């Protein structure tokens, strides 16, 4: 059988559909259209929430850094945290803008490329947040104690304690990578945990970049 024979079958199928399917206009008229969630809406809301939460963090850290700019013991951890918060905020704003500008009526390859790029960006952000969090909690503790409680953390936290915490962060990081790879294909965990493991291990990223490559190949003249 040839593809053109299938075209004839398809035309018969088309004629059959004409008679056999009906649009439930009553359901759509009951203003369901505006109430029902489309797939990307939760993502858009999540990005907005993340971005909104990051704005006060950037402002507070910026203010703290400004107040302690002459004291490296506070300025360095604050600068580290601020750099991370700005990077996350920047990624969030870019993702939100990309999502808002997405026109589903554009050619399929254009839309799919943008969606895949957005996905790559989301996965990279998640991965870096997860990987850096064990290393950033010591600076967070220093800035938090000084900034929120007004107590000098160095009065009771010595250099050994700080070094031990950084080391502990590195160990946690290695363990996280090991766990994510070891349990990646077990498929027994919840979808949320699986997504986290996939993000840390780079599997989600590989899948998203693979889709981008697939689109690029499809675009190329054969």
């Amino acid at each position, binding site marked *: 059988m040839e593809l053109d024979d299938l075209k004839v079958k398809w035309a018969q199928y088309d004629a059959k559909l004409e008679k056999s*399917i009906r*649009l439930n206009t009553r*359901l759509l008229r009951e203003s369901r259209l505006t109430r*029902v969630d*489309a797939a990307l809406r939760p993502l858009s809301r999540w990005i907005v929430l993340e971005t909104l939460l990051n704005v006060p963090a950037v402002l507070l850290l910026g203010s703290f850094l400004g107040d302690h700019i002459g004291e490296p013991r506070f300025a360095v951890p604050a600068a580290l945290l601020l750099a991370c918060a700005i990077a996350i905020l920047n990624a969030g704003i870019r993702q939100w803008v990309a999502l808002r500008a997405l026109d*589903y009526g554009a050619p399929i390859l254009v839309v*799919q490329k943008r969606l895949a790029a957005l996905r790559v960006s989301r996965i990279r952000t998640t991965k870096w947040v997860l990987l850096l969090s064990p290393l950033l909690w010591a600076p967070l503790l220093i800035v938090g104690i000084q900034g929120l409680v007004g107590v000098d953390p160095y009065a009771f936290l010595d250099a050994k304690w700080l070094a031990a915490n950084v080391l502990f962060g590195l160990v946690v990081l290695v363990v996280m990578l090991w766990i994510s790879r070891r349990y990646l294909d077990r498929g027994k965990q919840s979808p*949320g945990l699986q997504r986290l493991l996939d993000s840390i291990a780079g599997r989600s990223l590989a899948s998203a970049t693979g889709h981008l490559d697939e689109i690029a190949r499809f*675009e190329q003249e*054969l």
Partner: protein
Amino acid sequence: MTTTPPQDRFLALLDEHRKILYKVANAYCRNAEDRRDLVQEIVVQLWRSLPRFDERARFSTWMYRIAMNVAISFYRSESRRTQRTELVEEPILETLAVDRAAPEESSDDIRQLHRFIGELDELNRALVILYLDGNSHETIGEILGISASNVGTRVGRIKERLRKDFDRVANR
């Protein structure tokens, strides 16, 4: 002079092209529940994108783009089951009991056709549906975002693959 409300006009256009919804959903989803969800997502996205629709363009071309874009994203989404909210319980597209058209209830030829389409990747699947629906290479290229000559070459490859497929089945 009275003007038709946007929702009425939208529903009339949607009704006129309802087969696109059905064909795309059938090509990208194997089970009935997913097909119903996908149809709903396509309709919502069509409605939300309507303000951007250029009246000079063909509605069917625009509808194919949106339907296929949503279907490919739906198909690829790993988390759609956990993200779904506010599901509509009733189906937007009703199949009349007298003459069912779902692939599992169709003739052998149509089933075979759907099996063949189902074996293709998402992008080639879109291309085949557009080709079978009688669109020109130019229109297919416009919908997909590739050149007409690229469409021609890809259709040629798919024809070749189909021929081999059928030969293999016939020789068994």
